[in-house]
């Protein structure tokens, strides 16, 4: 798979990462070498291997449906730059 400079810029945009053209070019080179590595790995025969979604073959532990956390709003909001009426304030976003 070949990656274009536009792909890199679009991914950066989606990830909210600001990069200039030089950085984009450098990132393209780095990402392309990663893709080359993946391509090399894809030549390995994996037909008899079950795909896995996690690197460890253990399964998800579950917790019982019980409320264990109580209100710690004052503690958490002490970290927030701006709060009002119990709400966290952020720069306005309207989609």
């Amino acid at each position, binding site marked *: 798979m070949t990656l274009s400079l536009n792909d890199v810029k*679009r991914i950066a945009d*989606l*990830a*909210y990462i600001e990069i200039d053209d030089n950085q984009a070019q450098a990132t393209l080179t780095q990402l392309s070498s990663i893709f080359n590595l993946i391509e090399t790995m894809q030549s390995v025969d994996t037909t008899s291997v079950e795909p*896995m*979604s*996690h*690197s*460890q073959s*253990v*399964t*998800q*532990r*579950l*917790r*019982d*449906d*019980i*409320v*264990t*956390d109580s*209100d*710690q*709003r004052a503690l*958490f*909001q002490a970290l927030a730059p*701006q709060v*009002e*009426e*119990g*709400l*966290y*304030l*952020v*720069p*306005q*976003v*309207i*989609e």
Partner: protein
Amino acid sequence: MQWEIVIGLEVHTQLSTQSKIFSGASTAYGAAPNTQACEVDLALPGVLPVLNKGAVERAIKFGLSINAKINSPSIFARKNYFYPDLPKGYQISQFELPIVQGGNIHIQLDGEEKIIRLTRAHLEEDAGKSLHEDFHGMTGIDLNRAGTPLLEIVSEPDMRSSAEAVAYAKTLHTLVRWIGICDGNMQEGSFRCDANVSVRPMGSEKLGTRCEIKNLNSFRFLEKAIDFEARRQIEILEDGGLIRQETRLYDANKDQTRTMRSKEDANDYRYFPDPDLLPLEISHDWIEQLQKTLPELPQARRDRYSAQFGLSKYDASVLTGSREMADYFDTAVKLLPEHAKLCANWIMGEISGQLNKENMEITDCPVKPSDLVALLARISDGTISGKAAKTVFESLWQGEHGKNVDTIIATKGLKQISDDNAIEKLVDDVLAANPQQVEDYRNGKEKAFNSLIGQIMKATQGKANPAQVNAILKKKLTQ
């Protein structure tokens, strides 16, 4: 040209757990802002999600109730997008291997049954709430809802009208409450619909370009939004235009949909398996155990009501509108099995009517199934007429006379005159007093008969058994 409307629905149901899907914070509705948002919901550094067993169980129950496949393993994935009410920068959802795959739902419309196929149902967390007003140009964020467990239920594009879409949504709404996985409260956002709508020339196999209408929180809006959207698309196509794939919002005040975002600026969610969550294994034993906890489902009850009691499809479907109503009917009919239709009529008529009027649920109905049955027994044995029964019903509703049906009948003098001799005497008296009408009837004037009935009923203050009066009068007139 004839157009065909094609609709698929995505329904977000909020699962009725006590705690959140990945944290131990409460999910109770209506708390003060951010008092139910813990470090996991806030995405503070270093926290890890731990999956709520109750949410998984509810999803499995849903899958079992629609004959779907339960995937094991099932995988959680990150859906990446930026919005301040999603502090992690991604929503934990499912992409590949959702917990529920396939299945179907039977809907009833105008006495016809139709099967709607389901694509999948997956577990995910809800986002928080953004409040855009009154914060001097800033947005206020309440994260109480962040992390609330949702089951997103996705149908195939199997519906062909807004009425079918509403029937499907209502059937689903009944089902999730029936099996106790969601409270179904639409005002509080526990059951939210998105509709995918496209149109195509009648007879065409190829799907048209679709638009998605977001966040329809009532059945009425669902119907109106689909109708508007289908009309909009047909007008564009008939003018030679093309439909742009986009997400639209329904504005209830204007009764129209408008663009929210087009496909070009649609997010690429960059799904990938969440490394914080391991594959979810669901054992056969666990599934079997949950299967045993499922109540008799609406479809099975409808079938039983038709087979066992000979009720019409319509009656059976009204009575199974909620599990509580069906349970009420079952309790009543067990006490009066030979009069199932009478029980059904009274529950769908007087009881439902009065509950609606007083905005009450059937579980709070002051007339209990045993009270109703005591009343219906007095109708069926001829003690009281249907009309007098309504008076007794009102008394029962008000809790008068210790809710004793026989005391109410006696106190109010509602007992029906069912004695043949007494009625014959009454009929004789009325006939003797009205020779002209008797003459008229014998000369073929049918109307005179009703007039005579009226006079007899009046003479008894409506207490004579109408069927007996009818028979005796007919006999006397033809003598």
